[in-house]
């Protein structure tokens, strides 16, 4: 129940230097230069992290935890996620959501899976609805879903995509105001996560919401923003207006390097910083490719492993580790309304802690104070793994 982590280089994500960290049950209790007097006590496990780096566990804002896909018919439906896929890739918090398919995939199923993952050891939130509009919900409305159902924190919708319902600016205002009200009333973020396609409209519907309503920019999160140079430009404009943008890590090594290059360029732009940009995996969602006629010509599915690989690539490209980490820790925590609790190494925060080896490779992981991974060995598994 008590864990003492010794001699770790801590990035909170700001660098704190070499520290000892005391975990009691699920939370961080002390962070000090030296914490003494616990060796040999009953119920105290000590872990020596000499030469290793301790960072917040990753928050993945976009995961198809029940599986996504289906764009080539039923056989292309992606299977659901298993716990160890997250923990072995440094992820301790996920936001589960639906994708293209809001008919054979249900919100009820999503919520049940999120609760199962939370029971198994990580932390999972959910969004209601899917790509389409009007929304599909559990209780009959987006507002009621967010207010009544734990762990619902917002709503998903597709924008500027041939698979979307082509929601208008007014439609988006209706969704965003419902999420906003529900968020306030239930003390949740009331987030509107918008799948951005390659459609001509780009972020226009989002700018319409900002120009024609009082919904704060923080409630609106467009994702897949590295899809095209035009979307990156629109995202830059959104960030400059106080908004946030979510970028999807690549789905293979080559793609991942392309995304890392795009992120480096994006983060160097005036008015853009890792405080307003997040990265997510789109894991277990399909990544279909379409030809110019809109025919699906192949599909694969995304893995969460490219999140950490992207961090490594960004650091290789010269981005300081503390800046790279923000994309997956402190910035998503702001969007989730969990500052000081998730995405940080701080006294009172959840003990979601990722240990990196000397080459910044994933070494160990603690999820809500439990040892999920130790020196590469998976210790916490899903029930049917």
């Amino acid at each position, binding site marked *: 129940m008590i864990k003492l982590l010794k001699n770790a280089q801590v990035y909170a994500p700001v660098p704190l230097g070499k520290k000892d960290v005391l975990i009691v049950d699920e939370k961080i*209790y*002390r962070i000090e230069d030296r914490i003494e007097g616990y060796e040999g006590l009953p119920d105290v496990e000590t872990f020596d992290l000499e030469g290793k780096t301790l960072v917040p566990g990753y928050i993945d804002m976009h995961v198809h935890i029940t599986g996504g896909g289906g764009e080539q018919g039923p056989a292309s439906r992606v299977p659901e996620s298993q716990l160890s896929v997250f923990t072995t890739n440094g992820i301790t918090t996920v936001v589960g959501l639906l994708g293209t398919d809001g008919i054979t995939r249900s919100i*009820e199923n999503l919520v049940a899976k999120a*609760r199962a993952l939370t029971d198994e050891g990580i932390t999972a939130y959910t969004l209601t609805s899917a790509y389409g509009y009007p929304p599909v919900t*559990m*209780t009959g409305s987006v507002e*009621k879903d967010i*207010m009544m159902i734990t762990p619902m924190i917002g709503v998903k919708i597709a924008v500027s995509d041939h698979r979307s319902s082509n929601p208008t600016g007014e439609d988006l205002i209706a969704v965003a105001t419902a999420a906003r009200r529900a968020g306030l009333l239930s003390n949740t973020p009331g987030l509107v996560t918008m799948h951005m396609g390659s459609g001509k409209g780009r972020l226009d519907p989002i700018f319409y919401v900002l120009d024609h309503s009082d919904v704060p920019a923080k409630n609106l999160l467009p994702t897949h923003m590295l899809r095209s140079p035009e979307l990156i430009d629109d995202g830059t404009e959104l960030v400059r207006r106080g908004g946030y943008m979510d970028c999807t890590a690549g789905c293979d090594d080559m793609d991942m390097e392309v995304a890392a290059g795009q992120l480096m360029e994006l983060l160097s732009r005036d008015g853009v910083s890792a405080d307003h940009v997040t990265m997510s995996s789109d894991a277990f969602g399909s990544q279909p490719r379409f030809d110019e006629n809109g025919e699906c010509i192949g599909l694969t599915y995304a893995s969460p492993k490219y999140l950490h690989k992207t961090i490594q690539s960004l650091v290789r490209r010269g981005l300081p580790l503390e800046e790279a980490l923000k994309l997956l820790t402190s910035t998503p925590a702001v969007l989730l309304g969990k500052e000081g609790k998730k995405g940080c190494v701080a*006294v009172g925060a959840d003990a979601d802690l990722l240990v990196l080896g000397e080459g910044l490779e994933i070494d160990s992981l603690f999820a809500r104070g439990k040892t999920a991974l130790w020196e590469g060995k998976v210790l916490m598994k899903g029930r049917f793994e």
Partner: protein
Amino acid sequence: MACALLIRHADLYTPEPMGIQDVLVVNGIIIRIAEKIDENFLGIGVEVIEARGRKVVPGYVDQHVHIIGGGGEAGPYSRTPEVQLSDVVSSGVTTLIGVLGTDGTGRHPETLLAKARGLETEGITAYMLTGSYEIPLRTITGDARRDVILIDKVLGIGEIALSDHRSSQPTKDELKRILTQARLGGILSGKAGVVQFHMGVGAAGLGMLFEILDETEIPAKHFIPTHVNRAIPLFEQAKEFARRGGYIDLTSGIRESDGFPSCIKPSDAIRICMEEGVPMDRLTMSSDGNGSMSVPLPEGGARLLVTRLSSLHEEIRDAVMAGVPLETAIRVCGENPARANGLWPQKGCIRVDSDADMLILSEELKIDTVIARGRTMVQGGEVLVKGTFEE
């Protein structure tokens, strides 16, 4: 912010008597129980409460509270107010289950859910049942089974009125369906899936519930008839029902002094059950707090009053005075309702890994200190933590 609390020299009842022990709490969870725990065990910031050998018992689990108010049977002016945090904690209640009552029209389960979440944020632990007295059931999602599965705070269905002029006169088949909805919902969500039945004074009493036990394979643990000390014939049936494996729930606010002339005083009911060998693990007691009661006035007529949660501890204390061992009495509103509602061992006991919900009793067995999820809510009989809008 992380916080730790050490209770020193507790005469500990887990509810089993354990002698003098120290109890260490961190972040709302009991992490260590031992004869001696060093105050510096965690290094810094440990609040110490010196119990000086006084009795420390699990916080009460009150499974029947009208948290958004109830009543209304004499028109709108008779609607009782909602519960305030200090009413709850000063009564020694650290976990409660909110219910609707007669009024399923002017009051809604959505409101109940919001109030439960509010109380939880204020510091205690709160759950709810979906439905009200009436049939068809008033629910959040349109279906009681869905409510149990999809809404974290919904533990079951209730209170369905039976043998009462305010009930919907449900048929046996309707009751079977409701019980199976609760059971299935409970199985699929990992909850108890109970149904609480408000028992009126109608002559049928528990009759239909016995028939359902005979005719179906629905386990008896899903049935919780409440207010069973309302009248002698009902209480007699209830004892038999407990022997068949069902739970029976006394209402601590049903006393002669509270306007129920032909009832059995709850503390007497506990003693009688013990003396007659009724399975004591099936016996629970709840307050019916913030419902309405009608107390006859000496000059004729009656006065409406709101029922209080404090009757719970008054009756526990009276039961102990009447010879019921403390460990037996406190189980009736601790371990037993926690088990019945699937909350044990997180609730209803003092063990490592359990929530730190504890009461320190004075030598006269009055509530001195109340700790809810590791936070001192009441100390020296004074409420330290009040609700958001309380003065």
